């Protein structure tokens, strides 16, 4: 079971990395969501898997009955999910702002903090930016 999830995590990581390397920072955000999921799953799997037994203590018992799933990684993952959401929300807003203020979602074209000479701008950029739509007014 764990091995299968390890493979799934691998796929998540691979797709996330592929997205993160895209020119459009929005894709980076998507990659971020995927790789956060992969990290959460990694913690979850690292705590080993137990099917069908949530870590709850039934009424009347002092401890869980029988072997239940490892609660600690669950708590960690929960924390990580919420933190990940916070980071994601900020990152999304940032990319949004980048678009409204820098006029592009292409990281190659954001040249304010680290300006480069226009001569070195690859020619394909001009072509691709034509694919962008006009932002909403």
């Amino acid at each position, binding site marked *: 079971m764990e091995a299968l999830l390890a493979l799934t995590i691998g796929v998540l990581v691979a797709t996330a990395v592929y997205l993160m390397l895209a020119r459009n*920072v929005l894709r980076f955000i998507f990659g971020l969501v995927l790789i956060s999921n992969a990290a959460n799953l990694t*913690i979850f799997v690292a705590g080993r898997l137990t099917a069908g037994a949530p870590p709850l203590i039934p009424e009347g018992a002092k401890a869980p009955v029988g072997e239940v799933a490892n609660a*600690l*990684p669950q708590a*960690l993952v929960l924390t990580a999910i919420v933190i990940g959401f916070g*980071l994601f929300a*900020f990152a999304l807003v940032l990319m949004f*702002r980048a678009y409204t203020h*820098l006029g592009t979602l292409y990281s190659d074209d954001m040249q304010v903090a*680290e300006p480069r000479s226009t001569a070195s701008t690859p020619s394909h950029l001009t072509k691709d930016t034509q694919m962008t739509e006009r932002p909403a007014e």
Partner: protein
Amino acid sequence: MSWYLATPLVLPFLTAVLSFLMRFGVWGRWISVGGNALLLIAATLLMVEVLGAGVVAGQMGSWAAPFGITLVADYLSAVMVVITAITALAVSIYALADIDARKEHLGYHALFNVLIGGVIGAFLTGDLFNLYVWFEVMLISSFGLLVLGGSRAQIDGGVRYVVLNLISTILFLTSIGLLYGMTGTLNMADIARVLPSVENQPLVTVIAMMFMVAFGVKAAVFPLFFWLPAAYHTPAFSVSAVFAGLLTKVGVYALIRMFTLIFDHDVGFTHQILLWVAALTMITGVLGAAAQNDIRKILSFHIVSQIGYMIMGLALMTPLALVGAVFYLVHHIIVKANLFLIAGVVERTTGSTDLSKIGGLYRTAPLLAILFFVPAFSLAGFPPLSGFWAKYVLITAALETHGWIIAAVALLVGLLTIFSMTKIWAEAFWKHHPAGIDPKLTTLSPAERRALLLPIAALAGLTLIIGFFPQPFISFAETAAEQLLDPSAYLTAVLGGQA
């Protein structure tokens, strides 16, 4: 006495909450200053306690060690907390004149104080996942502070900063999960205790490398530093000062902690790599600085370069080398934060930080010249300023272990640092202002001058004190290094009888 540990951690958050809720009006900023003054007192009390006891540990929630979260302060942690408190107080005073009401309304004080809380948490925690949490606290508040002005450059810099730091964060989280999967515990002392009995030692090295990369991004080492020069020159000056002083140092601290306490099983591999990383970091950073023409960009690249020195101390892993690393950490926080603060005053008086557009400060603002000279030449390693002792100890450590190349690199980079610092000096201070302006401090209001110059002068004074009277600091660092190399006291304090 867990409250010695808890108070410095709790205070910044309390300050953040109160100053945010009172952010309209003048209360917020004074709460921030007052809170940080209290923080300094609390940090000092902790330091006194640590000086007495060696290592102080406290179990949060009263749950015994590997089960709950332990806060622990050895010499290294304690001094980092104190330095953080000093920096925080200095910057919060500076912010009185640097941060406008609009930024305050948007929550500057909350962001700033939570950042400080995150930094202190990272220094004090004895729990790996908790360390992750504090890293996140720092990270997100630094994101907020970075873009608080909302300018185009800040947003662009923010994108770079955020994107690259998020990668590191995810890697860190994954690494923690995997290490938990191998050891079944999150308490750092407990991990250190358990790890030698893990069968698959090669895998431990792999995990160690994952941590190295994750913290390497935070510490901005080669080849993971790109985010730093891309972003650190964009925010408000008090913000970049606290970034420059503290944030990367937390990465260095984490590297030191992890690679002395936990990952000392394969020193021949991991620390050898660290040594190369250190050398390349020093060189690329200092060359990067040489290529810049803006004060903050120069200073930013120098952070990278200086980080290399600290990593060098860790990589050499001898008692003296760790003394050097610890001393360097302390020295660099004070000096680099101060330089960024000064850059802010330079910008206020001359109108820019672009060296080609400014000048004339030497003639008409001699006080500022002196205040710049001290940290700048300390950074360049001139004796008897604090930076000299830091470099001296590290180079001695390198030469003692016959690390000729790293010693040569450290020396050479020191030379190139002189080059950059004198460039700022020559352009911003010696040269006449190209626009014919006489940049005087008196263009600032008296209140502004007080708020801006007091922290700068205090930090410069600290630099001088460390420089002229290094003995207590060095011997302190010696004890810190001993504790790092022999963590038995740390383990006993955290785990009690289990160690």
